[in-house]
């Protein structure tokens, strides 16, 4: 069952098309990383999901509710944190939590205390006097203390030092079992460690969406070594990306890797070769390849 489901979501800001037919499904219990370059439409998609603004066309559902109807009580089940959300800076951390508590029937005081301790938040400090990292921690604590069914994080780690980022991720993962998490980011390294699913957005569209383990499994950097000068094929399989050659070596990225099938495909294209190696790729390398190729890897 999808906790988030969108169909042909389009959002135009005057002439700029921020979303261009987004189809996204986030399964229940997933830690879904929505990644893509700046300007891909991630924040716009999340803001439509949160009904901060409406779509130009298409539809979206969050927790079974049409996103256009998300308001008031629906938010008792959703924790939303964004890097660019304006917080009531005049409030002290404790006052913010005291203020928000009555809004949530499921607010957990002991969890609140736990989060305060875990994030080392000073209750009596004004938000305006907190560092960026501490502000993000306070926002996250206030978004987790009521056991949300869905946690939406829009670029939560941008500009944070690694220590704070790890603390936030740790705090988040400890609650991952009871919630579905959608986190957007343009920094792939930070989400690789904890995401279960990943979706890649580019130019307002979802290029692909799948389980992270499967994604990492199906991408390989292939190096084919020849005895002499390599013969580049006139037409390579469409799942081979960024093919290049040097001296006696041809390199490319395989996006549908299966040891036997890929091996047979290499032999079929190049004939007899001296050696073939398949190297695993990091998420960052996969997405760089995707971005450079600009084509659908699915």
């Amino acid at each position, binding site marked *: 069952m999808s906790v988030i489901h969108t169909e042909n979501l389009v959002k135009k800001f005057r002439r700029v098309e921020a979303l261009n037919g987004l189809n996204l499904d986030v399964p229940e219990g997933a830690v879904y990383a929505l990644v893509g370059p700046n300007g891909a439409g991630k924040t716009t998609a999340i803001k439509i999901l949160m009904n901060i603004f409406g779509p130009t066309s298409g539809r979206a559902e969050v927790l079974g509710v049409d996103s256009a109807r998300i308001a*008031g009580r629906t*938010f008792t089940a959703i924790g939303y944190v964004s890097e660019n959300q304006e917080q009531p800076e005049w409030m002290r951390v404790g006052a913010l939590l005291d203020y928000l508590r009555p809004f949530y029937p499921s607010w957990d005081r002991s969890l609140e205390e736990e989060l305060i301790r875990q994030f080392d938040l000073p209750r009596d400090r004004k938000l305006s006097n907190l560092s960026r990292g501490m502000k993000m921690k306070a926002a996250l604590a206030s978004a987790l203390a009521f056991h949300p069914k869905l946690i939406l994080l829009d670029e939560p780690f941008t500009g944070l030092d690694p220590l704070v980022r790890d603390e936030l991720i740790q705090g988040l993962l400890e609650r991952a079992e009871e919630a579905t998490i959608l986190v957007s980011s343009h920094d792939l390294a930070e989400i690789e460690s904890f995401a279960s699913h990943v979706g890649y957005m580019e130019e307002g569209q979802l290029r692909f969406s799948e389980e992270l383990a499967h994604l990492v499994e199906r991408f390989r950097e292939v190096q084919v070594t020849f005895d002499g000068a390599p013969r580049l094929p006139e037409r390579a399989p469409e799942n081979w990306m960024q093919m290049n050659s040097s001296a006696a070596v041809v390199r490319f990225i395989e996006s549908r890797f299966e040891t036997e099938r890929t091996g047979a495909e290499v032999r079929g294209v190049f004939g007899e070769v001296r050696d073939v190696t398949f190297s695993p790729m990091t998420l960052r390398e996969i997405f760089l390849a995707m971005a450079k190729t600009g084509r659908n890897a699915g």
Partner: protein
Amino acid sequence: MKQVLNIFKKDVRHYWHEIVVSIALLAAFARYDVRSWANGSLVGYAYEAGSFFFDSRLLSGLVDVLLPMSWAFVIVRVIQGESLVGDRQFWVTRPYEWKKLLAAKTLFILVFINLPLLITDVFLLAKAGFSPTHYVVGLLWMQAMIALGLSLIAALAAVTASVVQFGLALLVVVLYLIGMGSLSEQIPSSSFSSSIGDAVQTALLIATPLVVILLQYSRRTTAKSRLLIAGFAAVLLLILLATPYQTVVAHQYPRLEAGHQPPVRFSLLPPDKQPDGSVPADEKEVRIEIPFGVSGIEDNSIVSMSGVMVAIEAPDGLRWNSGWRSLGWSLFSENNRAGISFTVKKKLFERIKSLPVKADIWLALSVSRDQNRTEFVVPRGEFVLPEVGFCAARGLSYEPDIECRSALRTPSSLLVTYDISQSSCPGMEGQARAKPGEISRYWHSHSDSGPADFGISPIKTTRFGTVNNASNARAIAGFCPGTPVVLSHPELLRRTRIELELNDFHLGDYQDRSMRSSAWR
């Protein structure tokens, strides 16, 4: 209710400075308001009350300006605390229910603006000698009118993201109003007539802010809300431009029916003195004052000169029409002269001043019957005037006026008449008594029909001045204790318009070189 109170308490904690300043200003307002009844309301008498009076007037004027500004500031701050503009506010992704948020903001304004004002008004009424329990409806009416004014501020606050943005929006509104005022001056008759357009404007004035506020809280569609405000401004402009003013005036002031006697007769008098026909180079307009002999006003009639329109047709075919202009003075049975004045462009005047023109003068008249006359002798100290309030002779000791304080609204129609020769004032050295039968009148009337006038203070002061109409301008006059006066409550009977035709009329003969404003004598 829990959510409403939660938001309310948060706002109180956050905006207590603004609340304190606003309430302090309200207290200062009450203090100065009370002082103004005790000391009289005219600056001109300052020297009698000592220098503190000037300071007091200055501070009082400052408080009068600062108090509404502080209310506006409180409203802007509290509404923009959960800003309705933008997509980055933390509260939009929290379980706020818009009706409860709106209720919390409304509660805040009611508790910290309306309630203190209501308490102050009750205090001022009691302090002024009126029983507040007799004026509950009027007090609530005042609150409703204040709330309407505050809703305009709230609507602007709801479509702006910051105090600065609000200030800019307010500036745009002010510029728009100035523009509309200037445009109104350019459109003949527009400043005189009231029409169906007024009712539409009032309805829109009430509805637009409410719709904008509801739209913003329920949908946060700022662009649409701003468009709605712009649409409202455009409709007002359209009403101003498209109203057929002359038709409206003709409907409001119908021609005298055949066979009916006019309420007043006018006969052209020769000009007071022969002007030389020259116009100072720096003047762009020339004022014309035409003296008329006045007759035919019944004893108990009052003829108010509501408006005038002048049309001129020159022998060379040139036509000019002034459009309807307000006059606002009255003729009584004892008046035998009246001056009707208007202005023409200097260029036009120069062209036709010596030509025999045809001038048509239309007068919009409101005829009232002077009724319920009661004789009254001004007592010493404070006295009660029925249907008015508490009054006293105040002002210059040798020529005092009657100053009255009323609860919630000034009297709708009260005429004070007295024989100047019977003034009990001692006069100053060299002053003589007026001739018996020389009458002075002061008529206070206003058409507002609500249970209370618009304003912050529930105490309204009216000053019945001593217009010295005696043939000797230095005659002893004034409402000193012991002066017999006649009080009456004129009632409007009908409105009508009459036309005066002046043929072979030389405009140059009636050029008014004095700086006097339109007056009757």
